[in-house]
């Protein structure tokens, strides 16, 4: 340290930067190595496969090359386009509904003083239950003929609906399942955000005569911004990846009305044994998702400067 003090400040800074860079590299190296092996390689391989005609059964390296044919082909495939539209609708619906609902639940969980752990557990239940099993239960609940949901609607004097068997409602039904599954998860994250807000902020506002609504919009919401952005990012990511409930409950039907990209990629690869086309769709999905994440991160960084 003493030696450093005698050097000109510019040089010292440089040296420290050097040692920092080494430390950062060392801390990052396990993650980087694994990313390279278990993400970058598979991703490169997927790009490679998107230019091949491979049926998954034969040797992959002997699969004939087809250039960019799959990339042209998918846009002529109505089912792909439909799945793409459904995916966007689904992602938008999740982004629109999940955060406010989760925040509402989190607010209640934060305020309640009677057995708080019990309520938390209740809302977190959907997150810890097996998604395959819960999807089967939901399929049963939504059944138009004898599921409990329509039974309840009838008891309330309402008209029973077709739910997962109605092409106009199947996507809505799956959005409901996703909200059910995700609210607890995101509510816990919001709850953490709420508990991070110091009480004196509110006390000061009370002294200033602010009402509950004003406090919420002028203190809670702005202070929750980082949490909200995290929740938005996570919701978008999970929504793009949605698979299990779609696979188990509707399998994309009726008539592709709930077909999403994840499911269609999976079907193309493993049912239709067309790994090339599936990989091309995967690459398109990946590019879309990178665009979205870059957009979100830009937004993120701008907010962080406050």
């Amino acid at each position, binding site marked *: 340290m003493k030696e450093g003090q005698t050097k000109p400040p510019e040089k010292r800074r440089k040296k420290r930067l050097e040692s920092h860079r080494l430390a950062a590299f060392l801390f990052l190296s396990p993650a980087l190595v694994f990313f390279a092996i278990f993400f970058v*390689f598979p991703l490169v391989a997927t790009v490679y496969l998107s230019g091949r005609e491979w049926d998954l059964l034969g040797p992959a390296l002997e699969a004939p090359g087809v250039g960019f044919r799959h990339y042209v082909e998918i846009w002529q495939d109505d*089912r792909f386009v439909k799945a793409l539209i459904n995916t966007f609708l689904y992602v938008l619906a999740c982004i629109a509904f999940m955060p406010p609902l989760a925040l509402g639940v989190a607010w209640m969980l934060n305020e309640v003083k009677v057995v708080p752990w019990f309520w938390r557990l209740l809302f977190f239940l959907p997150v810890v239950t097996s998604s395959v099993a819960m999807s089967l239960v939901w*399929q049963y609940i939504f059944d138009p003929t*004898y599921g409990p949901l329509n039974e309840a609607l009838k008891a309330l004097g309402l008209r029973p609906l077709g739910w997962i068997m109605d092409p106009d409602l199947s996507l809505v039904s799956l959005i409901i399942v996703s909200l059910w599954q995700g609210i607890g998860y995101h509510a816990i994250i919001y709850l953490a955000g709420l508990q991070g807000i110091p009480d004196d902020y509110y006390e000061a506002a009370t002294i200033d005569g602010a009402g509950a609504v004003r406090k919420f919009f002028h203190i809670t919401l702005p202070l929750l911004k980082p949490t909200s952005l995290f929740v938005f990012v996570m919701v978008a990511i999970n929504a793009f990846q949605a698979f299990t409930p779609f696979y188990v409950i509707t399998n994309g039907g009726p*008539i592709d009305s709930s077909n999403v990209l994840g499911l269609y990629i999976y079907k193309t690869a*493993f049912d*239709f044994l067309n790994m090339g086309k599936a990989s091309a769709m995967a690459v398109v999905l990946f590019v879309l998702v990178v665009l979205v994440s870059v957009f979100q991160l830009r937004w993120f960084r701008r907010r962080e400067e406050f």
Partner: protein
Amino acid sequence: MKKLALFVLAACLLIAGCSGGKSGGNGDGGASSPGASSGTGSGEPVTLRILTHWDAANTDAFLQKVAAYKDANPNVTIQVETVPFGDLLKRITASNLSGGGADIYHIYNAWLPELSGSKSIVPAPDAYKSDIVSAYGENIVSSVSYNGQIYGYPTELTGYALNYNKRLFEEAGISAPPGNWDELLDYAQRLTKKENGQTVQQGFGVIIGWDSGVVHPWLTLLQSNGGRFLSEDLSTTELDTPQALEALELYRKLVESGATNPEMGLSNASTTGPYMNNFELGKTAMIIMANWWKGSLQATMGDRFQDVATAPIPVGPSGSKPVSLFYSWLYAISAFSKQQEEAWKFLQWLNSPQGEGQSSIQGDWLMAQGIIPSRLSDQEAHKANLQDDPFMKTYVDLLKDARSFPVIPRAAEITSTLQGHIEQVLYSRATPADALKAASSDIQKLISQ
């Protein structure tokens, strides 16, 4: 500058990735070239693994029945690995990638083009080939063949017939099952009940959401109307014919009259779900379904199973007789198996008559589940049962004229495509004419690729 560094990094990773892939591929090819190792000596312990989709009860029954093989071949152990039907093909692809897995695959014959084309399974050696040719009917042998090669021992034979609920027919004052489409439409409407605009009983049930479940029953109607799905040489679709239009118009009329409610048809390949429940609970009066589900019907319906009767497929206005559809399953040997000879020997033993005029073990086991054995000697040995059982008799009789679901490459995608277009009509989203036009052009594209 920053970007350049990134590119260099990416390029390095790319190179690392590609070389990794290459060595991976080579290793795979070398270690597992088909047929590299043949039969094992008689003394060495051998474990034969069968990959299949049977349920727990059937698997247990099978293992009990084949325990006898161990008596004659003490060195051989038989193991069964089961996965749901929906995962079976995926498991086979995974086994191929890892160059190992089960020795014997129990497979759906529609997968033959892909599995044989990729050399995942091996053709039967001559000795077993002649056994198969002589012991099974010609249409059965051809259903387990592809490009002139026979790929294994046929197991179950599944056909389609009309299933109906006698009690509901009596309640509606109908004495016999429909023989033609006019009767089908008429009865279906008389068998439909609605309360407050909701269907509480539908006349004719269809499957929604499960590709083969949607396509196969409709094809039996098409074929019983004198039509076909594909031309004889399997090179073109015949969906743009008047017969096909009539068959799809039938569905439109059923839906428009309210006699068919697609919302009651949810089903998938792993669980038969609400579609089946509605029939079991007497909420659906008629369906066209395969014989393999007799066991499940019996198990869940109990005493009410006696209400279930079967009848030939109703004949359409342009048809002359019921022409059903069938598909088969077979035991094939994995090309990656290191004990192919042992596996063939076991399969031959399993499928050969246990004694003069007796059934094979395979035949007994299939019959116990209500499945029609495909071996001629098995059918002969179980003749009494097959003829006495009114449920099965219809299926057996229909098999004479039944047509195999075409064994062609991309069958899964073709089926799924046709499913979509049929469902469009069932949900009144497309007219039959438009749906057929789109279906034939889509499917023609898939066939020609």
